[in-house]
């Protein structure tokens, strides 16, 4: 009976993820940002479990589990720890004010859909239609990375881009080969660790996480 609603459910999750990306773009407080990111991860996990259940692919459970551990539990915890350590609570000014960001974001979504439409039309996977949404998520988080001027939000944008990718992998192609999944997970893990270290170092060098300090190297 779930199988009957599966497509709608998948699309529901997809829309949820897209919604969350928009929320992240518009969000200013770092803590909330992290929570939103966590929810997005959760939605991702749910989607992959559902797909795994419907298509009877154990791989998807595994990848879902990986995502759960990394994106829902570990990374948010670490980020919270970082901002507590470095007590950066606020991320007041974005380079682009929120309404404009939203407008541009909508434009991106349209672009993404129009790109994905021909592809998903000939997609036979369960949720081929969600390719567009995944692409939209990627572009949105890309823009978020551009507009945010502090380190932590940038990292979150980076990670939510990963979310978009994973979602694409899960929903569109019902899971990459296992070994690749593991590799990706490993890279993400290490990457996040390194980023964490860097954030500490940046803080001790500049005693702020504002990236405006990182503009010394340029063509003068």
């Amino acid at each position: 009976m779930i199988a009957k609603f599966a497509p709608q459910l998948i699309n529901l999750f997809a829309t949820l993820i897209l919604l969350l990306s928009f929320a992240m773009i518009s969000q200013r407080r770092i803590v909330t940002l992290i929570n939103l990111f966590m929810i997005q991860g959760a939605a991702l996990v749910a989607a992959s479990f559902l797909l795994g259940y419907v298509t009877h692919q154990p791989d998807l459970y595994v990848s879902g589990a990986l995502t759960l551990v990394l994106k829902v539990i570990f990374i948010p915890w670490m980020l919270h720890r970082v901002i507590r350590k470095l007590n950066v609570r606020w991320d007041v000014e974005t380079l682009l004010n929120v309404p404009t960001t939203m407008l541009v974001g909508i434009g991106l979504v349209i672009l993404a859909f129009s790109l994905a439409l021909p592809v998903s039309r000939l997609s036979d996977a369960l949720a081929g239609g969600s390719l567009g949404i995944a692409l939209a998520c990627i572009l949105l988080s890309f823009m978020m990375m551009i507009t945010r001027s502090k380190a932590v939000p940038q990292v979150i944008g980076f990670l939510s881009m990963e979310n978009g990718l994973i979602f694409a992998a899960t929903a569109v192609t019902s899971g990459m080969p296992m070994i690749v999944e593991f590799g990706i997970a490993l890279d993400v893990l290490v990457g996040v660790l390194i980023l964490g270290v860097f954030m500490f170092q940046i803080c001790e060098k500049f005693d702020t996480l504002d990236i405006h300090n990182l503009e010394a190297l340029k063509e003068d």
Partner: protein
Amino acid sequence: MNPLLFVLGVPLLGGVVLALTGHRGYARDVNVGFSLLTFLASCVLTAQVINNGPQLLWHDQFYIDPLNVFLVTLTAFVSLTTAIFSRPYMRIEQDHGKMTPPRMRLYHSMYQLFSFTMLLGFTTNNLGIIWVAMEAATLTTVLLVSVYRTTASLEAAWKYFILCGVGIAQALFGTILLYMAAEKVLGPEHATLLWTNLNDIKGQLDPTIITLAFVFLLIGYGTKIGMVPLHSWLPDAHAEGPTPVSAVLSGLLLNVAMYAVLRCKVLTDGALESNMAGQLMMGFGLLSVTVAAFFLSRQKDVKRMFSYSSIEHMGMITFAFGMGGPVANFAGLLHMTVHSLVKSAIFFTVGHATQKAGTQVMSEIRGLIKVNPNVGWGLMLSVMAILGMPPFGVFASEFLILTTAMRQQPWAAPFLFLGLGIAFASILVRVLPMVFGDTTLKPLAHPPALIPVFVHLALALVLGLFIPPYLNGWYVQAASMLGG
């Protein structure tokens, strides 16, 4: 027991070992030892491939063919020479207090792991694993670039990480699309990312998806190639890291990314009837050559300048592969080889020069030829080589590229002319006073290791005058496999 096991295992093991003992005094020699073993193993592997032809290993997960085997050898070789070079260099850095034992440990183990990731990227048959290897290479090199812990190096590393991370993410999306296309042909259960299988079915892959996929792959890996305008991270990362790292970054890492793009281009050309991939690459190539040339004309920092020259040469290579055809592909491969040889040689000499002068600012480096004629002539000759002066190999490839372009893509010729001309003018005008004239420098405590420089130059010279038949055989096979 396949030598590939050693090719991949030795550096991995080395990374682990050095992670424990890298701070010791003998670690430098251990480092060289591991690189040497890797190089030997790769030579054996090469011999096997020469004799037995391409081979698929370990559930088809690894694939050695003419295209990547000589890149493997090249990588192993250059990382060996770089290791040799970095022995005295890092020692001096330690004396200057720039490196501490823990940092030395990080440096050595990351050095080995870095070469491991590159070799993995070359040898694997799985496009997903290529992606993983590229990401891993980014991570290791990020640590290497930031090893000095100065604000500058930190900034460079951060930019490097973020920009390349984002770029790589695009590449992953491209890979997913590729997988999706494969799934459409083979069905969910036999879906695969193995390049060989994809290559067999490339004719049936869906053009729409492949087009989209290639764009993302090109943008993604192109960021690591340093194609303008995705290059912004490159000069910072190359200029701020330790010189050996700059050498391998310029000499090797760019090749890996280029290799990944090539593999994808083969599939794309198979899937599409249009030459979309080629045109995109030509466009990016020309843009890189021209813009990089103009950047070159305003450099003050020597390592920064040569990293821009790397961008320019990568542009040439991209353009060559974009043109396609046997001659252009041959030229591109040749250019990849000689560029990594010569560019790393340049960075070696530049490393010594900067250590002597205590600065990377070119206006303060003078009269190398007086202090140490070998360093001076080494820099002079390798710069002449990189500027495309015969009889060095760079000239051979540029000769083929330009002459082919003049007939196949006449519209591109003026841009190449402009780019090469300006690059020549701007590099030479900076280097001449560095080499000649009266000096301001003092000799160093430890004798510089100049063997690598002259070995590289000798090889580049040989490639310009006489390409050994078997190497030529590789090139020709690889070029034909790239098709176009």
